[in-house]
């Protein structure tokens, strides 16, 4: 996710990670982020937030939110095979946003 966060942040894509376990300490999460070289924002003590999204301990779970703040998709789990699909979704949503904002014709939904 960090890879895509960096690749598309200039176009307006962002990742926000929520550590959904209140008992996990800042140090634990920092070490985890350091080891995996995560550069996107991470927030802590997200149990109540995960309740709002009805995550129900099914993690990792990700929600796609469009530029108007609407949930448009949900992904459960993450596998290497999902990487292409994830990037395609990013590009598609960015293109749709740009088209709606009148920023010209949407770019082709090519991840490359």
């Amino acid at each position, binding site marked *: 996710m960090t890879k895509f966060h960096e690749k*598309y942040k200039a176009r307006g894509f962002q990742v*926000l*990670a929520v550590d959904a376990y209140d008992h996990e300490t800042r140090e634990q999460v920092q070490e985890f982020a350091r080891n995996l070289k995560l550069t996107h924002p991470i927030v802590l003590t997200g149990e109540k937030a*995960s309740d709002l999204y009805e995550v129900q301990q099914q993690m*990792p779970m990700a929600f796609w*939110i469009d*530029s108007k703040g609407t949930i448009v998709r949900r992904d459960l789990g993450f596998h290497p095979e999902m990487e292409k699909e994830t990037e395609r979704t990013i590009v598609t949503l*960015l293109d749709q*946003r740009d088209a709606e904002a009148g920023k010209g014709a949407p770019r082709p939904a090519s991840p490359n």
Partner: protein
Amino acid sequence: MHPPIRPMPSIWSCLLIVGAAPLACGADAIVPAVPTPQAPLIKIEEGEWLLYKGNLQVQQRRQEESDSLNLALEVAYLGLGSHAARGDAASVLLLRRGESPDEGSAAATEAISLVADPARGLIADLPVHDRGLRVSPLLFKLMPLSIFPTKVDSYVPRTASAERPPRAKTPIHVLFPEEKELMLTWWASEADPETKSWVVTVSAQAGQNVSFVQNRVEIPFEISRLERSYRLAPSKIASRPELLSFESRLEGKLPGEEFKLHVELTRSEARRIEGPAWKLLQADARALQEIERTIFEKLDPKGARALVQAFEKERSGGRLARYAASLGDQADNVWDIVHERRLYGKTAPDFTLKDLDGKDVTLSKLLPGKITLLSFWGVG
């Protein structure tokens, strides 16, 4: 040795329908020679309960591959009458339980609500395909929805051993649920003069071609043999002969390979239960149907879980407890559907949390104009 039930290549799964088709779709599969009365053969009235015990054997071979399945089968039809307004007969709950004699290497318990349809016999009340996939695709197709060939009264032999000439092309469910037309012959012969049982055989002429579509690709299949036989015994009710055994053989060619399938279903016991035992079973069945409705119609997995727990507590170790437990698992599957419906298209719930630097991060302030992937995880 009987191999455990396992997922099979999709083409196999489709072909296996052949064996189950005369049972699952029986009424339509074999078109009667004479006009049939509207009533299906088995019309389970409200308050009736019918138990069938038998063995199901399936052998299949494709090229050098072979596979077999052998189950001790128990099928219970429970006439509940909850949908009587929808047809001229009561609805039933069909419970199917199969176990391999090979140290339980294969076992399954399934159930489905059926409604008696005047034209088609027993049909599923809930979406079969969907539920079949959720439960056990293989077993769902192998285990009969209706063990009795409905409209079988039209096969009563008027002249023993009288073979009928080939009929005109007749619609039949051959390989797949969609209807095909095949040239059929059927005849009846007396099998056992003492018990007055008789055998009805339906045979398709060899060399006929059918095809099926899988993943939008049309696959031809040439039938070299398709034969189904039913051994039937007279029952107290003349229009309800009892099925003693069923056998189906299909042989043919798929592109580049031979295919053989043999299905046998043998009845060892069939009986009705009345009185207190029936009332208890009826109560259980109604409770299970309520659980099913809570899962599949109300899409309420939490409610279903609660009902399942209550059921298991009250009927611990009972006949239907295992099925109730499996319903609980299905409730979990429904959770995804519920979750999606509840959240999709809605404004993302807001929250404010501290980031790794101790600064407040408010989601709603980040969102405008951006595409956001909000990811929940843990490091543990």
